């Protein structure tokens, strides 16, 4: 323990947010499959609605099983609290709509998950929210893209699928100089490898579907409030600093200076947009979360071996993985991802698109599908799947070639994984007659 009273990641992953059930003594987190909660009497019902006392009213807004997951991820990230939602995309949408409305503007890294790029580039503009995409490595570009109506800076810890490491301390400083918050999508690293709030970020989101769950059985999203951003001092966020008629005229920043964002996200966003998480999914995600630190160490070990193996192979043009010295963000990765750079990598096969198809077709252990962060190894061809909406120019800007293959390296025996990759590479060799 670095400080008295602070628990390590492994302990928090198992215990944070849950005490054994007081009625039955259940050690595991119970699944509270209920839509609503009985009010003991009329006074207590009124008290819950008035926020005179905490508690659950309706499972769209809060649920005891979800609350364990929320508190656990908040503890792991070092935040003040969290909201569990239906998916990572729901978490991103909730963050944006809590901070701004029509006329708002976002500055985002251009190295993003395809779904996030789509939300910013095509969907949010229909609602009057526009986004400027910038080269995540270009600090001046971040600074220059900020406008008077900007309300959020956004990037991924490791840009999907180009594996760019975001310089969170630098981008956070740029955001704060403009009195703006920085939201980080930390899906590819999880709190086992990086705690963005400690690096200066203000908000963190996850697709819990990925490494946090780890098993690939439950879709879910998490949004964590760091509690450091001073909304009142910023003066740019009336949703948090002016009375909200939709909830008792509450001025969220006055009500709770450290949890204003969280309050509004739950009391407006979850209530009105309704993208709540099923308690069954919360339970399943919690089962995975219990072993997150252990799993991430094993993921990283396997991924480093895979990356080195591919980098040494004559049929591979290049490998993008920040742990390799050849990666442009290697030094930054060593600095802000000291425990490892995750389990996703991409590489470019000689032979372009056809080689990519042959390679994927020959694999037996790696599953060809649109996901990352499963305990099982996964493979995909981004240009024809996750990023198919992007133009060739946008693809190139995001560091994706037509023959780029993305791997999410799982927890199988490393010798078996390398043998499977050799099988794919042999098929490419046959295609290229080398």
């Amino acid at each position: 323990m670095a400080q008295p009273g602070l628990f390590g990641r492994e302990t928090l992953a198992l215990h944070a947010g849950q005490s054994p059930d007081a009625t039955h003594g259940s050690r595991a987190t119970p699944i509270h499959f209920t839509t609503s909660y009985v009010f003991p009497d009329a006074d207590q019902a009124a008290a819950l609605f008035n926020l005179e006392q905490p508690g659950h009213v309706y499972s769209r807004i809060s649920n005891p099983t979800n609350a364990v997951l929320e508190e656990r991820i908040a503890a792991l990230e070092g935040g003040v609290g969290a909201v569990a939602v239906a998916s990572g995309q729901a978490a991103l949408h909730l963050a944006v709509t809590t901070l701004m409305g029509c006329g708002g503007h976002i500055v985002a890294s251009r190295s993003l998950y395809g779904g996030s790029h789509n939300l910013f580039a095509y969907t949010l503009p229909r609602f009057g929210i526009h986004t400027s995409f910038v080269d995540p490595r270009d600090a001046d570009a971040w600074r220059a893209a900020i406008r008077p109506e900007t309300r959020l800076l956004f990037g991924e810890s490791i840009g999907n699928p180009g594996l760019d490491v975001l310089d969170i301390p630098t981008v956070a400083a740029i955001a704060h100089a403009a009195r703006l918050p920085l939201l980080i999508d930390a899906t590819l690293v999880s709190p086992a490898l990086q705690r963005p709030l400690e690096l200066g970020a203000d908000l963190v989101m996850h697709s819990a579907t990925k490494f946090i769950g780890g098993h690939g059985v439950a879709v879910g999203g998490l949004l964590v409030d760091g509690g450091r951003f001073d909304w009142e001092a910023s003066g740019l966020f009336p949703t948090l600093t002016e009375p909200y008629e939709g909830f008792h005229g509450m001025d969220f920043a006055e009500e709770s200076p450290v949890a204003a964002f969280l309050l509004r996200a739950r009391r407006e966003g979850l209530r009105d947009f309704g993208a709540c998480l099923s308690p069954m999914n919360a339970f399943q995600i919690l089962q995975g979360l219990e072993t997150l630190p252990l799993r991430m160490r094993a993921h990283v070990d396997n991924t480093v071996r895979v990356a080195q193996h591919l980098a040494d192979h004559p049929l591979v043009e290049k490998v993008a993985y920040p742990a390799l010295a050849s990666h442009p963000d290697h030094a930054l990765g060593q600095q802000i991802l000291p425990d490892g750079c995750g389990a996703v990598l991409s590489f470019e096969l000689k032979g372009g698109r056809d080689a990519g198809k042959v390679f994927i077709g020959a694999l037996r252990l790696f599953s060809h599908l649109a996901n990352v962060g499963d305990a099982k190894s996964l493979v995909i061809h981004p240009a024809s799947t996750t990023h198919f909406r992007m133009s060739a120019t946008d693809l190139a800007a995001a560091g994706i070639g037509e023959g780029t293959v993305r791997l999410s390296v799982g927890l199988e025996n490393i010798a078996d994984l390398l043998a499977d990759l050799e099988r794919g590479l042999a098929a490419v060799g046959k295609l290229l007659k080398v």
Partner: protein
Amino acid sequence: MDIPVNHQLTRIYTGGRSFDRELPTVVLIHGAGHDHSVWNYQARHLAHHGYGVLVPDLPGHGASHGTPLRDIDAMASWLLDLADAVGCTRMRLVGHSMGSLIALAAAAKAGDQVERLVLVGSVAPMPVAPVLIDAARDDRDRAHAMINQWSYSPAAQLGASATPGTSLPGTNQRLMERQPAGVLATDLQACNAWLDGLEVAAAIRCPTLLVCGERDQMTPARAVKPLCDALVNAAGGARMMTLPGAGHAMMAESPRALSDAIGKFLK
């Protein structure tokens, strides 16, 4: 609401309802390194049950301007100045930890102006470990970690917060971090230096309630007893009650039980 007190802008939270001076007034006073938000649930409860509620950020804390006051007597005088500023002639005082010392000192100064007194997590004197005062001055992160370790019951340290989705230690840490440098150290030194508590307690004539947390490590129930015994002139005798399972941060750990206890006593 924000009003000037002694020419310094002061943030006063009113429990989600506009302050009405025609209603019986309750003033809730936060502890060292905190602000009004530690009292959210109790303030809202009282504001929705017939009271005009005032929860100030002490000078230099939260959104209140100025510098933190250096001793408990000065804080108590400031509190009475605040009451004057809002036109409050009679009031009930509720304080937590350092705030309880301020409430005790203010009640002694104000005499009949204070109708009821609730001391939450209170001992007098309130010695503070030198290691904590030193850390508050030289290594705030360490001081915050120590306070978090001592503020919560063992169960609350790891979680199962009463407020869904909220980390109690995380929230408390961030709240302490938000206060300007030096605030926590000044507050803790003020607590440590105020040695008049038991003497002052004898001057209290209004009904008084002391609330202890069963698992409070900062102000354990056994240490509260001398203060309770010193309140010899409190009308009806001072009462002491214990909240089962709660640590020092009772407002967040046992919000409903504490609100009920305060609400019933203030009637």
